[in-house]
């Protein structure tokens, strides 16, 4: 829209016509206070704090509902305005308890700020304040009625933002009250958005309430460890006797790809770190057949000796490695390097939740075709094939809902189930659960592939008319079907794609080569020249065993050792424990899972909140993980692998390029071109990076990843600042994957489950056990 020019406090400002005055002022750095106004939610004008004087208008006007017009002259601060705001604060305080010293919001309360600013600390009211006891609405939501200032933010974010409509305002005037949908309790997604958005301490969190004050915590922005959306979460942490504990998670600073959104898992499910079953000492199976705690030194020594012996006597092919969906990119990369260059095996895999390999192959050499999570907030049209984002990708569902609401984006849903996002859809069709491939073929114009109806025909017509389309598909589509879908998408003028997988670094695990046939960046193991030169050792050229084959081999006695990091395949794949009885099993995990219970050595590992590095969400957004909490006794998966490698007699410097000079160079080499110089050191200099000094520094490995995996060679500054960088997926040099077994096993997690990890979150368990959740998990997933 055309710009208009207006004056605020004597300053000439310009903004597009239709802009709200409060927004125009905030953009120009003029702060107008408001309780009820919240960007992107509907207007309320309930709190009257944003009143300003506008020339030629008879009374003070609310800046949150006034749009700027040409020549408008506004005064935002004057005695008159101050007096009015002070009066409003006094009214609000009329029944507001003075319990700031114990209130959770104390120190970050908007009402406190306003009281300090406008000085309405002396009340002329003599009436007794109406007290109501606080109510518990769910395991995670508490309501303290007298603190409520009736700004309606919670009601609006629940209805408009979440499309749950669990909160409403009952009664009117002074007896108005926020009411949950079940009378005295909530039936909702338990996302906690209402708590976050509350400007005062009326809604408080079940995990955080009465525990600490905001200024007594450190606040660390990192990435949620649960689903594949990779939402940014700010963890409030404080030191305790045995480390640093997390007390709350939120994203009030709206940084990151998720804005201020977090779901129940991101906000509350960090308490697995304090679960009583958490391992803090290494365990080694004794001669009596029982696991017993031992020192780190002993456990590492024992493991290294055993692995070395097996490698030297039976060869690398007798060893298998299974990686994790929740470790950092650096750890995944390090693990495959460990497997291939130290153990000498390609028997490496992970629990695959989406066919990223086929996706990478389909997008090869097609720049700008992979959608970031950000793109969903602005796309004009979105086609959702399969998946249930409300359950499996809450962040994505939030972006889509927001986009539909604010920009009237057109959402098309094709699914075999009645997913909740149909409510936002412009058009939707129900497919048979095995009908995705034929439907894609039908979309592409093959009428014979799918028994269509008028509905599917018109669905196809509107999609094919879209000039710019974003296609997100779930793990229902794999292999050749992904190729077919991408081919169809590319026949439209401007299409982007997103492949939806399940866990925080499922994408990274695939990208970093936790696959038996592919190196990092999906380079075939048979074309490992560049990696072999870099690693300084020949790599096995034959594709290794995949996860299923490894357990088969173990059952047949052909797998002498299995090294598992952060995964629970015994439960997830229903492995018969007897298959592993003759296999030396090493497990790195937080808990004694079904898999760890069978191990010969269990290393107590740190979780994603206790380490640094990077993770890649399912959309290919690379983000920084910062260390927030800590637990005495545990070590990161990164450190454990490096220490085992060291004790195995291999050179850690060849594994982690730290320090100066990975290879000896006494000045006799002739430079990088000849292949003789220390390539890594040359690359570091060329990229103005310092050599890393510690063998446990994940960024030393990140340096190597950026150098060897072109898709990950993104500008680093933005990343280090805590922002997301989208991968250059088109640079992936993958060869044809036709006929490859995808082995995808969808995790089928819902909002309140998160594989094996979710089982160790007491809060999630409590939420699931309560009667307050909208969608019951069908069964507890395992990973």
């Amino acid at each position, binding site marked *: 829209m055309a710009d208009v020019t207006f004056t605020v406090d004597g300053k000439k400002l310009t903004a597009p016509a239709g802009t709200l005055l409060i927004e125009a002022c905030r953009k120009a750095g003029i702060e107008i206070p408001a309780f009820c106004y919240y960007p992107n939610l509907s207007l309320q004008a309930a709190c009257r704090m944003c009143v300003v004087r506008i020339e030629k208008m008879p009374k003070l006007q609310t800046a949150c509902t006034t749009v700027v017009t040409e020549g408008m002259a506004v005064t935002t601060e004057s005695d008159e305005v101050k007096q009015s705001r002070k009066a409003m604060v006094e009214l609000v305080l009329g029944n507001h308890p003075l319990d700031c010293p114990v209130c959770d919001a104390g120190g970050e309360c908007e009402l406190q700020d306003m009281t300090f600013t406008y000085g309405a600390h002396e009340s002329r009211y003599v009436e007794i304040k109406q007290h109501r006891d606080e109510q518990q609405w769910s395991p995670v939501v508490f309501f303290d009625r007298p603190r409520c200032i009736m700004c309606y933010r919670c009601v609006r974010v629940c209805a408009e933002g979440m499309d749950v*409509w*669990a*909160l*409403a*305002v*009952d*009664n*009117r005037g002074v007896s108005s009250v926020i*009411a*949950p*949908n079940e009378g005295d309790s909530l039936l909702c997604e338990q996302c906690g958005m209402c708590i976050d958005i509350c400007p005062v301490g009326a809604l408080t969190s079940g995990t955080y309430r009465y525990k600490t004050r905001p200024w007594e915590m450190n606040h660390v922005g990192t990435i949620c460890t649960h689903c594949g959306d990779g939402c940014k979460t700010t963890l409030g942490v404080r030191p305790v006797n045995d480390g640093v504990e997390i007390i709350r998670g939120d994203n009030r600073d709206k940084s990151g790809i998720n804005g201020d959104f977090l779901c129940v898992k991101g906000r509350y499910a960090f308490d697995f770190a304090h679960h009583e079953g958490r391992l803090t000492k290494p365990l080694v199976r004794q001669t009596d057949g029982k696991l017993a705690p031992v020192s780190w030194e002993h456990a590492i020594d024992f493991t290294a000796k055993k692995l070395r012996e097996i490698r030297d006597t039976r060869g690398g092919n007798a060893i298998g490695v299974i990686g994790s969906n929740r470790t950092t990119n650096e750890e995944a990369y390090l693990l495959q390097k460990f497997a291939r260059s130290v153990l000498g095996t390609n028997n490496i895999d992970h629990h695959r939740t989406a066919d990223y390999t086929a996706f990478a192959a389909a997008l090869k050499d097609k720049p700008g075709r992979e959608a970031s999570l950000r793109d969903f907030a602005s796309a004009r049209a979105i086609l959702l094939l399969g998946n249930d984002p409300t359950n499996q990708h809450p962040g994505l569902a939030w972006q889509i809902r927001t986009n539909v609401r604010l920009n009237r984006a057109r959402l098309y849903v094709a699914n075999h189930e009645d997913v909740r996002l149909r409510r936002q859809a412009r058009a939707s069709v129900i497919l048979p659960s095995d009908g995705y491939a034929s439907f894609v073929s039908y979309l592409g114009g093959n009428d014979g592939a799918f028994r269509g109806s008028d509905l599917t025909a018109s669905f196809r017509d509107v999609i094919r008319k879209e000039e710019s389309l974003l296609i997100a598909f779930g793990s229902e589509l794999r292999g050749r079907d992904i190729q077919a879908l991408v081919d169809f998408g590319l026949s439209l003028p401007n299409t982007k794609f997103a492949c939806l997988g399940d866990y925080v670094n499922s994408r990274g695990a695939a990208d970093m080569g936790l696959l038996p046939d592919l190196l990092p960046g999906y380079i075939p193991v048979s074309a490992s020249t560049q990696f072999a030169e870099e690693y300084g050792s020949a790599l096995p050229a034959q594709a290794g065993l995949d996860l299923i084959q490894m357990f088969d081999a173990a059952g047949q006695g052909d797998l002498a050792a299995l090294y598992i990091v952060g995964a629970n395949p015994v439960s997830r794949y229903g492995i018969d424990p007897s298959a592993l009885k003759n296999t030396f099993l090493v497990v790195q995990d937080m808990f004694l899972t079904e898999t760890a219970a069978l191990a010969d050595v269990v290393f107590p590992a740190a979780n994603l909140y206790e380490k640094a590095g990077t993770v890649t969400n399912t959309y290919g957004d690379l983000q920084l993980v910062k260390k927030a909490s800590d637990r005495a006794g545990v070590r990161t998966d990164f450190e454990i692998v490096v220490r085992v490698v060291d004790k195995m007699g291999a050179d850690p410097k060849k594994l982690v390029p730290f320090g100066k000079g990975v290879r000896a160079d006494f000045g006799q080499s002739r430079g990088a071109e000849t292949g003789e110089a220390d390539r890594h050191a040359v690359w570091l200099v060329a990229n103005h990076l310092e050599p890393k000094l510690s063998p446990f520094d994940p960024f030393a490995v990140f340096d190597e990843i950026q150098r060897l995996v072109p898709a990950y060679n993104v500008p680093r500054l933005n990343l280090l600042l805590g922002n997301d960088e989208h991968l250059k997926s088109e640079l992936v040099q993958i060869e044809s994957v036709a006929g490859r077994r995808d082995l995808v096993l969808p995790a089928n997690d819902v909002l309140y489950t998160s594989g094996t990890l979710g089982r160790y979150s007491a809060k999630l368990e409590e939420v699931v056990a309560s009667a307050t959740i909208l969608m019951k998990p069908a069964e507890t997933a395992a990973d």
Partner: protein
Amino acid sequence: MATETTIFSPELAARFDKLVTLYPVRRSALVPMLLYAQDEVGYISKAVVAEVARRVGVLENDVVSVLSYYSMLRTQPIGKFNVQVCTNICCMLRGGNELFEHCKKRLGIGHKGTTADGVFSLEEVECIGACSWAPAVQVNYDFHENLTPESMDKVLEEYREKAQK
């Protein structure tokens, strides 16, 4: 919708079917629907809330939220005749308060009370727009104007007779 089971009379159900088509969004039919339902059922019962919510396409707590805002929508049954005495300024100056006190005494009930036989309910209300003929009383949808305690008795008597028929 018409084929579904309804707690309303066929006429009212048909009226509601039309009502939701008259506005740009279905939700707008909520308040008139509640008023008509109250006229037929006598008050907004839980069953009314449930059906109205279904017809309008909102959740029940949303209906309760709107319902609880309006003082003329009630969630409890009342007497057959709802005597609403205005005590706003014009009526007050012309004896509205006295009239209200008289009704209380005569009916033996207070504000928002209902007689034991279920014939009368009494309510003190804000302006009913009959200032020119103050003091005024509204009984259900009928107005009675320029009242005195004596003429009020007559009005009540008429209704009592009506109730016995």
